[in-house]
């Protein structure tokens, strides 16, 4: 009978992915700070560079929650634990990236708009998204019964994601009816973005994507190991009662 101490060492592929992620982040940082030109003062000058991280974080966050959505559906259809694990992992990592978006946004906003927070469409939708998946994680930790956690979480994973476009659209519509403060144009598009800037942007996007894949793989590995340990403990307990 395998013991918990015989855990497989990290596969080489995973470490390579990690190295690639770190390298691409370093490259992106270089490009963002030294290759992309400084933006207009109205856009925040040097501070505008934060958008090279803000926007990719947002895209990756949405990607994560799309994964939660699909994995939740797969789990409800097949009942296979690996989909539940994927949904859980993607939700956790998605929250991390969403939090990054919510932090980088106000950091930029404060000097440029003079206020930490604006109820603009994108930030508000991101906040709703964040709260939805915080709720998802709370649900997972508060379920009374191990067996039902996956099912209940999957329902929230599905409903939450279906809500996202509706929330986004309604907040946007609400905002156009009640404009306040400076109008928020996306500072990374439409204002003279040349090749150096685009290169920096895509480098950053690549870096974040690799980072996401690496973190997700690590989290999945941890989850699988935890399941193995639990299974072995159950088998040990069962053997004792015989």
């Amino acid at each position: 009978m395998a013991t918990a101490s015989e855990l497989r060492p990290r596969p080489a592929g995973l470490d390579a992915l990690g190295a690639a992620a770190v390298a691409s982040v370093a490259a992106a940082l270089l490009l963002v700070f030294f290759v992309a030109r400084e933006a207009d003062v109205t856009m925040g000058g040097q501070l505008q560079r934060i958008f090279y991280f803000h926007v990719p974080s947002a895209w990756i966050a949405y990607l994560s929650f799309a994964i939660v959505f699909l994995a939740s559906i797969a789990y409800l259809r097949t009942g296979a634990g690996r989909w539940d694990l994927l949904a859980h992992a993607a939700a956790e990592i998605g929250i991390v990236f969403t939090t990054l978006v919510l932090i980088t946004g106000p950091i930029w906003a404060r000097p440029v708009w003079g206020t930490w927070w604006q109820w603009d469409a994108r930030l508000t939708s991101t906040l709703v998204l964040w709260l939805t998946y915080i709720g998802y994680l709370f649900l997972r930790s508060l379920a009374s019964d191990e067996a039902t956690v996956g099912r209940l979480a999957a329902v929230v994973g599905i409903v939450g994601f279906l809500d996202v476009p509706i929330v986004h659209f309604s907040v946007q519509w609400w905002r156009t009816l009640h404009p306040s403060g400076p109008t928020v144009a996306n500072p990374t598009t439409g204002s003279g973005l040349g090749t150096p800037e685009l290169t920096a942007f895509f480098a950053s996007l690549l870096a974040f994507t690799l980072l996401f894949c690496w973190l997700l793989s690590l989290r999945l590995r941890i989850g699988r190991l935890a399941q193995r340990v639990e299974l072995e403990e159950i088998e040990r307990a069962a053997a004792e009662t015989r």
Partner: protein
Amino acid sequence: MTKTMWLAAKDLRIEMRARDTLAPMLGFAATVALVLAFALPEASSAGDDVVSYVQAGFMWVTVLFAGLIGFGRTFEVERAEGALDSLLLVPVDRSALFVSKALSNLAFIVVLETVLLPLSALLFAYDLGGSWGALVAVVALVDVGFVAVGTLYAALAAQTRSRELLLPLLALPALIPVFIAALELTADLLLGAGFDALAARGWFGILVAFDVVFVTAGAVLFDAVLD
């Protein structure tokens, strides 16, 4: 004195182990703050109409919270005496169960609103502009979406610890579109808009889309929630 402190310490220690009260409370507070942020508009954006927006906000916040507490209760009904087990064994489609629960919840909400709306109009001197038809349309569309999400999530939360905190925590972010639409349309009504003006605002489309999506989702997913 020390005995009191010991007892208080006991509660704190239990919470540190169980972690099912303080953290959800914070989450709940965050979602409430979000909802209220929509209900209380910045004075600059609303101008003189701010009073109408605040009135609409009060009304719908009340319905929202009373409704959610009520929905939570309707699943308590099943817990006593193991009636839920009997219900699950009955040869009835789960979607039908969802619709039955949603209908009874809808009835509760309608009764609530029937009492609340005239009462608020009286106490706070609302002027609903005589466009009762439009008001009914708005309330009907909002209620359907509210009840669909509320029923589904109430059944879900009933199977967890801290269900009184978890239900609003989950439902409020999901209900943001309905809430915004309700606020906007009601505020417009209070400002004297008629049915056509309301329809032109575009909120009906969002409400209908929301209702369709979530009634369907509820009917389909209720199976997964109950099992």
